[in-house]
């Protein structure tokens, strides 16, 4: 297995002919016809890094390159179809699979400073090593904020989150409405907090539609005639009936309207165009809105299910934090750690309030406890503000 294929097709000025000949050959030999990605150029005059895969290792097996965009030309000098890939831990950065014996393939990789491993032919072969050194440009990139393009992935994933949570919200609201229709008070009470969870998880974006917010989530406190006000609709109207009145009576119109509203919300979440600020500033704004008043006052005046609400809010905030975190420049690694710490602190503060697996009534959390919880959310908001400023696309 150690002898290298001598008849390896070598790129030359006669490449078109060689390609044609190779094509005829492989077609004739049972359909191994693929040549589209084989280099059609002469020997790399463009600074491509050449690597040869032998039967048991690559030559060179260790590469050192400056950060940036690099073209690699991989020549399979072994007798088997093999692969060559650049690995960052378990993640594949770039790869070429099924390079046929004797053939060359090219791949292009944009490399950041660091040490990478290389899969060199057979999986049993020793891994190669690629050391990428920092350059003035990569140092500048490590300090600068992300460009707009860097937001596409995180914004797409946030969009997916909004769509999934929107669907979960509609499904959970359907269950709640069905229980109300059956007049099953106990069941409806149990389904109130789960239905709200979907709404809370998307609150950072849902808040932009005032019409829906005023219909889905008005608090009696803000209405002239309080609970008797015609504008008292949505979740809290249902909560009032189920928990203050312990009945489903008269709730059907509010329930039907809520279901229609969250269905509209789901459609809007599916259609919304997101910008980078929606993720960065949106998270900061939501955390601060909770910290400044809502947590201390409480929002579910009859069900006292605020801890479940906050848990769902945290799920939404943590998702946003997780998505912006990789955008924080390398030079601001401390900020990324601080963000992790703040999210963890809120998570632990909430977990500490659980009795067993469930959240107790919010009445059991006294003023000092609520202040402490608000403080944790405020700390998170402060850090999210710093992150947001650092990430403004420039």
């Amino acid at each position, binding site marked *: 297995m150690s002898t290298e294929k001598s008849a390896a097709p070598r790129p030359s000025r006669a490449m078109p002919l060689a390609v044609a000949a190779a094509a005829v050959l492989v077609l004739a030999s049972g359909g191994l016809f693929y040549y589209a990605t084989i280099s059609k150029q002469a020997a790399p005059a463009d600074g491509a890094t050449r690597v040869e895969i032998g039967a048991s290792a690559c030559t060179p097996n260790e590469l050192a390159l400056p950060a940036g965009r690099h073209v690699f030309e991989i020549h399979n000098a072994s007798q088997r179809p093999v692969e060559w890939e650049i690995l960052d831990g378990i993640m594949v950065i770039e790869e070429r699979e099924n390079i046929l014996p004797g053939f060359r393939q090219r791949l292009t990789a944009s490399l950041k400073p660091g040490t990478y491993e290389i899969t060199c032919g057979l999986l049993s072969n020793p891994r190669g090593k690629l050391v990428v050194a920092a350059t003035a440009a990569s140092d500048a990139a490590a300090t600068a904020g992300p460009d*707009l393009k860097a937001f*596409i992935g995180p914004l797409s994933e946030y969009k997916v989150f909004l769509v999934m949570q929107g669907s979960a919200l509609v499904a959970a609201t359907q269950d709640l409405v069905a229980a109300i229709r059956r007049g099953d008070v106990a069941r409806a009470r149990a389904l109130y907090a789960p239905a709200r969870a979907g709404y809370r998880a998307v609150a950072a974006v849902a808040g932009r539609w005032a019409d829906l917010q005023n219909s889905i989530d008005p608090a009696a406190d803000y209405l002239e005639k309080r609970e008797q006000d015609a504008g008292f609709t949505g979740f809290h109207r249902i909560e009032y009936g189920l928990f203050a009145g312990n009945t489903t009576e008269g709730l059907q119109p509010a329930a039907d309207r809520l279901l229609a509203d969250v269905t509209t919300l789901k459609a809007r979440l599916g259609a919304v165009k997101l910008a980078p600020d929606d993720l960065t500033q949106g998270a900061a704004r939501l955390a601060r809105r909770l910290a400044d008043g809502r947590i201390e006052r409480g929002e579910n005046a009859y069900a006292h299910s605020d801890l479940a609400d906050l848990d769902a809010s945290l799920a939404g905030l943590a998702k946003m934090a997780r998505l912006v975190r990789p955008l924080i420049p390398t030079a601001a690694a401390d900020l990324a750690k601080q963000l992790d710490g703040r999210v963890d602190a809120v998570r632990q503060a909430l977990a500490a309030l659980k009795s067993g697996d469930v959240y107790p009534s919010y009445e059991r959390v006294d003023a000092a406890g609520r202040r402490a919880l608000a403080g944790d959310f405020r700390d998170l908001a402060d850090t999210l503000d710093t992150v947001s400023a650092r990430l403004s696309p420039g």
Partner: protein
Amino acid sequence: MKPQHLLAAGALAAFLCGPAAAATLDLVEPIAAYKIYVSEKLQTLVTDTKAFTSAVKAGDIATAKRLFAPTRMSYEAIEPIAELFGDLDKAIDSRADDYEKAEKSPEFQGFHRLEYGLWAQNSTEGLAPVADKLMADVTTLHQRITDLALPPEKVVGGAAALMEEVAATKISGEEDRYSHTDLWDFKGNFDGSQKIFELVRPLLENSEAAFVKKVADNFDTVDTTLAKYKDGAGYQSYDKLTDGDRKILASAVNTLAEDLSTLRGKLGLN
């Protein structure tokens, strides 16, 4: 080219293309829709792999053989993303060729190890641990991708990567060499590639009308040719593919691979 020339060329390109900002955020919707597609395929993969590995463990060779190809289709459709995790791709989908001692290597695991046992050895003996490991790996894959923000360049580049995969391994019939169910995998790769193209198509419809039409026509050619080999819910054995159709597929797939490899550049993702 000297650096200052590169800079000048870059500035000129930016000028000619106009502000790229608006165009790039338009990718958010297609990438999000693709993630949902991937999630659905992964759910199917987990469910199907459960049934497949259960049959293997129960020693039910006939059922296991019947479930092998349809189970793989979901994996093949999302390969550009599934392959992002080097450890799992090796564990789930590596071929005997990848190992020094080929089929005799203890590291040879996953789908193709089970395929080898079921077809080449017509037995499920010793396959239970392989089946358990495959199930665990597929479950881990699902979990990892659920939390993953898909890199846009991998998604868009995936359209070409899937066609290259077809060209390099499927038409030669070396992927499923024991079961000859390559046409199923082919269909999975094909669907995955076409899905990506269809999702970004609205962004190119005006500016790249000729390109869009050419690619769509080639996808149609592959679709029509593959359809001739449909058999119930799946596809006939790879041996049945005629030389004429193999050539038609080869030509269309090669052209697709080449054309789709320009997709990243056209969408500003290089």
